[in-house]
């Protein structure tokens, strides 16, 4: 239906909320990319079939919902039974019949499917008792996992599009003022105050103006924006419409990464629904304000996450950044005033307008208000999507929410901020995570990728990894980035092969400062951060590669050997998997690795049940 005025919208919302209140039972099935890959669509189908077969519709209104990502992707597919909040993990279609029979009909909880606390070993019954969720503060992600992202009614029922009529009733300057007071800073990594950006754009005497949402989440190890677009797409649209009203734009674009097909699909559905509902298009909610949104599909270039490159790409050109003597708020897309914000930033806006700037500013720290979503991944027990108030410590995130390191191995470092960030060691664990503190420590908070590294990670290899990434992704426009990174890679490659020289470390320093000073865009300027931070905190590892020809992390192939220890039970699993006939041994007798044939492919390690293969 079309909402011709705020009143009509509110009437519909009340109706939807009444209806939602009558629902006795909800079965929430995660349909994020992770759980879908694990087969959650089949699980949902099985629930529909089994509940129908059990005749469960009678007397009980029940909803089976495919929701956005619950965040706990490691344990997918996830199913939550409401109202009890019973949390089942790794659910397969074959489990569904049992769940319907035992839990839904008789109220018995299936212990086997409950999450096991990795620290205490105890089974946890409801999701709010799981450390992973209990220690989070979900503000931007508040709807994700609770609503069906493909249903506008679901978003309306949880208070969606309540901020929009409020904002439309305000003067644009008042909206900007509220965003300023909230202290919201750009979540894409730059941390620029959003209100100030909007105010500057509004003041430029030029038309038309544009609003762009940056969903080109290119940092490896980061998927917050994907989850928001997939799980709560209307929140992004609502934030954009409010932003457009504030700066006086009638046309908006969402630039979505080519690698995110599901995000594109769900945003597309949301745009269509919002258009039909009169929340986008002509005369939005009868206010006289017009705004349309178009989705742009990225072409698979990391550099297009940079604002000026992204704008050129939207215009159908090669995505090369430009020098920013003139800011894009003044001359952006098609040389017209343009506001570009990240997905998460836009998703914060409805909350700020609806709950008030004060409520948002009350969370987090003075300089960095609100919450921040992180993708906590790597060698950590609870991986997934995490949202915490700004200012909590790295330790709280990694060891509190994340539950510590896999197999309780020693923590070595945490990589934050993607290729523009760096690696922080054990001694930095108590630093507060906000826009400024991590930058001072030589990394940055960035867009929210947080990759935990354990003792079996080689820090030189991590540095090489990022430089290699940037060599591939450098747009090639400016010399320091294009050529400097190539040289940097050659040096790091050499060190990883044990052929490095001590003077290489000085050379790395020189190259880094050329990159930082001479590059055109922020990507080039920050490209040496991963190298500099590893060199600052893990110089001993560089030296071990160069002088001792050893790799302390046991990663660099040229510097390591494999051997089998006494734990070997002679199961022959490794013999079967080795493609190079490098392992010999009889059944039930200790096996042996022949170094001349071994290529260090690691296949044996992944199949050995006894952890008998050692890396030196």
């Amino acid at each position, binding site marked *: 239906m079309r909402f011709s005025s705020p009143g009509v919208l509110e009437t519909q919302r009340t109706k939807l909320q009444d209806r939602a209140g009558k629902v006795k039972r909800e079965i929430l099935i995660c349909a994020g990319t992770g759980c879908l890959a694990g087969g959650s669509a089949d699980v949902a189908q099985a629930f529909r079939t089994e509940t129908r077969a059990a005749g469960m519709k009678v007397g009980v209104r029940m909803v089976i919902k495919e929701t956005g990502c619950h965040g706990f992707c*490691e344990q997918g597919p996830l199913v939550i039974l409401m109202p009890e909040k019973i949390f089942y993990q790794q659910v397969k279609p074959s489990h569904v019949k049992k769940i319907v029979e035992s839990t839904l009909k008789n109220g018995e909880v299936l212990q086997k499917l409950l999450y096991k606390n990795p620290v205490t070993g105890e089974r946890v019954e409801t999701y709010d008792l799981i450390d992973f969720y209990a220690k989070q503060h979900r503000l931007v992600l508040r709807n994700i996992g609770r609503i069906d992202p493909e249903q506008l009614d679901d978003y309306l029922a949880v208070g969606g599009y309540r901020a929009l009529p409020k904002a439309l009733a305000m003067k644009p300057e008042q909206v900007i003022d509220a965003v300023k007071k909230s202290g919201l800073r750009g979540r894409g990594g730059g941390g620029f105050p959003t209100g100030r950006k909007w105010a500057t754009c509004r003041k430029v005497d030029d038309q038309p103006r544009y609003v762009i949402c940056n969903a080109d989440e290119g940092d490896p*190890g980061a998927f917050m924006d994907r989850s928001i677009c997939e799980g709560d797409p209307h929140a992004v649209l609502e934030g954009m419409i409010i932003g457009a009203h504030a700066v006086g734009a009638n046309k908006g674009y969402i630039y979505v990464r080519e690698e995110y097909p599901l995000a594109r699909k769900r945003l597309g559905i949301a745009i269509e629904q919002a258009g039909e509902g009169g929340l986008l298009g002509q005369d939005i909610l009868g206010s006289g304000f017009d705004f349309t949104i178009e989705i742009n599909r990225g072409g698979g270039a990391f550099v297009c996450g940079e604002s000026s490159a992204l704008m050129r790409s939207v215009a159908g050109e090669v995505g090369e950044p430009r020098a920013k003597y003139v800011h894009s708020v003044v001359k952006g897309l098609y040389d017209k005033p343009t506001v570009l914000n990240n997905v998460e930033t836009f998703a914060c806006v409805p909350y700020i307008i609806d709950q008030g700037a004060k409520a948002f500013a009350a969370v987090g720290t003075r300089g960095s208000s609100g919450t921040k979503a992180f993708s906590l991944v790597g060698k950590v027990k609870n991986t997934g999507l995490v949202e915490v108030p700004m200012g909590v410590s790295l330790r709280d995130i990694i060891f509190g929410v994340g539950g510590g390191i896999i197999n309780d191995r020693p923590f070595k470092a945490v990589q934050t901020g993607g290729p523009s960030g760096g690696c922080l060691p054990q001694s930095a664990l108590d630093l507060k995570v906000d826009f400024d503190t991590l930058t001072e420590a030589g990394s940055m908070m960035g867009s929210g990728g947080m990759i935990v590294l354990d003792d079996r990670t080689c820090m030189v290899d991590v540095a090489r990894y990022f430089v290699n990434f940037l060599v591939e992704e450098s747009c090639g426009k400016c010399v320091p980035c294009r050529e400097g990174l190539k040289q940097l890679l050659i040096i790091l490659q050499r060190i990883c092969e044990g052929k490095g020289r001590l003077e290489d470390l000085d050379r790395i320093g020189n190259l880094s400062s050329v990159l930082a000073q001479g590059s055109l865009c922020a990507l080039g300027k920050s490209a040496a951060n991963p190298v500099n931070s590893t060199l600052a905190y893990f110089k001993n590892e560089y030296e071990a590669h160069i002088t001792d020809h050893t790799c302390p992390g046991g990663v660099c192939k040229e510097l390591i050997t494999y051997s089998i220890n006494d734990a070997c039970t002679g199961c022959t699993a490794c013999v079967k998997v080795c493609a190079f006939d490098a392992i010999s041994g009889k059944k039930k007798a200790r096996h042996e690795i022949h170094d001349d044939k071994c290529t260090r492919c690691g296949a044996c390690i992944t199949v050995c049940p006894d952890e008998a293969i050692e890396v030196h």
Partner: protein
Amino acid sequence: MELDLKPLQGILDKHPVESTALISILQDIQLHYKYLPPEALQQTAEALSLPLSKVFSVATFYSSFSLVPKGKNVIRVCMGTACHVRGAGLLLDELVRQLKVKPGETTECGEYTLESVNCVGTCAMAPVVMINEQYYGKMRISKIKRIVKT
């Protein structure tokens, strides 16, 4: 083999005759033909009154475009940071060995194209291998044989 240019005309007709539509047009061509045939680039340039060099520069800048036909199935090994520290490089090495092609190449039979990709954003299931639109999480070298038949 002669290229069927009829679908190309349909694609060009669907988009506005403006240079800003260039990337969208190329994406549709790539989707239909599985690559950007030279004739198609030529026709696109003429249709939009753009120099061929400009069309070519866009076609070669973005990694989602390919100037050579891709295989029936595209295998993408995620090289994101989370996958990297959980052994994605070893998976790629193994696929190179089994398929006998380097990343970016297509097997002789035309069955598989092997690609490495910088993060598909499913880091919690690292390491991840994608075959066409299907994600395979927590991959192990020993599992590769199950999903790729050589």
